[in-house]
């Protein structure tokens, strides 16, 4: 059964007709064309599909479109601040926090969520925040470094 839903996607109000059982991940990638969000495991283990649903990071591979009427969704495409990349994006580029890049959108979403709440996290807090995001290439060292550097960028910006 199809249902018309109204949602805010990356700050813009959008209306779309979707089958109730269509997953948010498939809605984003196949219907709307926002392919930055990736499908890894499809069972909520890897975090590659992380988006914000009403301000909280969730696995979009396990959210039904039928539940989204009135929801506020932010995807990796909505992370930029105007024309500029977000500090977590800049830091991942600067530090080589990505290799194959498949897990990177999810890593960035979780990193930003962490830094929004805690702009000065310890390494343990970063590892804890990213515990639901699996990377099979990097060994995590450069990812952790990138989050630490992004934290410095954000703090310095606030000081200025």
């Amino acid at each position, binding site marked *: 059964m199809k249902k018309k839903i109204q949602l805010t996607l990356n700050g813009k109000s959008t209306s779309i007709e979707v089958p*109730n059982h269509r997953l948010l991940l498939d809605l984003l990638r196949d219907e709307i064309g926002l392919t930055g969000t990736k499908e890894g495991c499809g*069972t*909520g283990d890897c975090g590659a599909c*992380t988006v914000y*649903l009403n301000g909280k990071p969730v696995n979009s591979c396990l*959210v039904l479109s039928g539940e989204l009427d009135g929801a506020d969704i932010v995807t990796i495409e909505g992370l930029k601040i105007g024309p500029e990349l977000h500090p977590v994006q800049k830091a991942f580029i600067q530090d080589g926090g990505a290799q194959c890049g498949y897990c990177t959108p999810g890593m960035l979403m979780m990193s930003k969520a962490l830094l929004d709440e805690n702009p000065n996290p310890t390494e343990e807090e970063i590892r*804890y925040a990213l*515990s*639901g995001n699996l990377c099979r290439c990097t060994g995590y060292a450069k990812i952790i470094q990138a989050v630490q550097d992004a934290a410095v960028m954000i703090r310095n910006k606030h000081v200025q």
Partner: protein
Amino acid sequence: MLRLPEFNYIQPRSLKQATKALADLGADAMLVAGGTDVYPKMKRGQFTPRHLISLRGLRELKGIRDSKEGLWIGAGESLTTVSNHRLIAKHFPALAHAAESVSTPQLRNMGTIGGNVFVDTRCNYYDQTFFWRQAVGFCMKKDGQICLVAPGSSKCLAIASSDTSPVLVSLGAEAVLVSRQGERRVKLGELYRDDGIDYSTKAKDEVLKGLLIPKEALGRRNVYLKLRRRGSFDFPILGVAATMDIDERGECRYASVVLTAVASAPKIVPEASTLLQGKKVTKELIDTVADAAAKISHPLDNADMDYWYRKRMAKVYTRRALESLAGLDSSA
């Protein structure tokens, strides 16, 4: 890629509508709240409902509040909310820790405490894709006839895997269940059955509305220790929840130990109350309770790590839990 099969999705606007839909649709329907266990299992063909009744957004299932009877936790509250809640962190650190130890930050934002309390039992032969299970000939929990862990067993031996339920049982929590017939309150511990398939005594037409931790549990010390291979995220392969009340003379007024992942239901260790209550807690008494915990633990070769190791660790973790509550910490 694992795809979600088609189904009929029902979004009731009230608990009354949800219980009516559940009663009307019977065995073809399943409840879903956070969906973090239901949807992966539908993708893997472990759950095959024709109708899904969503509990998401039902206001009756929300709220954590202090009442004259105790602490009320709505079944629809997310695990993140439970683990961060001020009253829970203050009075029931074991519950906050258990909720925080479930899966990943993203899944805790989605998954609910009600879903975790009645989360499906797990087994290495069951928690696999359809193709994997087909290749080994299926097990009795889904699509097959025999138990692949113990082919002579007449019942399914999948293990209880909730982190929050042993804590809630050890705190003496009650569950409030709602059906078309009305509401009933029952001790949470009575809602489990040691059967991997039919692991709950909750009636099929009942919805868990919430959990009540009784007033007398306030002030009792409590702890939850979880064994798993990865500290980041994993289901428990052993969980020990302990609650204890010690008076000013050092005498134990109340003690409860509940294990998870050692059977198909949370296991109460009766010796915790029979041996400790009314006595001064000593290391020797704790050792005896820990021995009893290991004795009633029957881990099998159907979860991570060796079963003999998990049985040994039931003793070690029970001892550590009780020693920490009694202030008799040892590094052993």
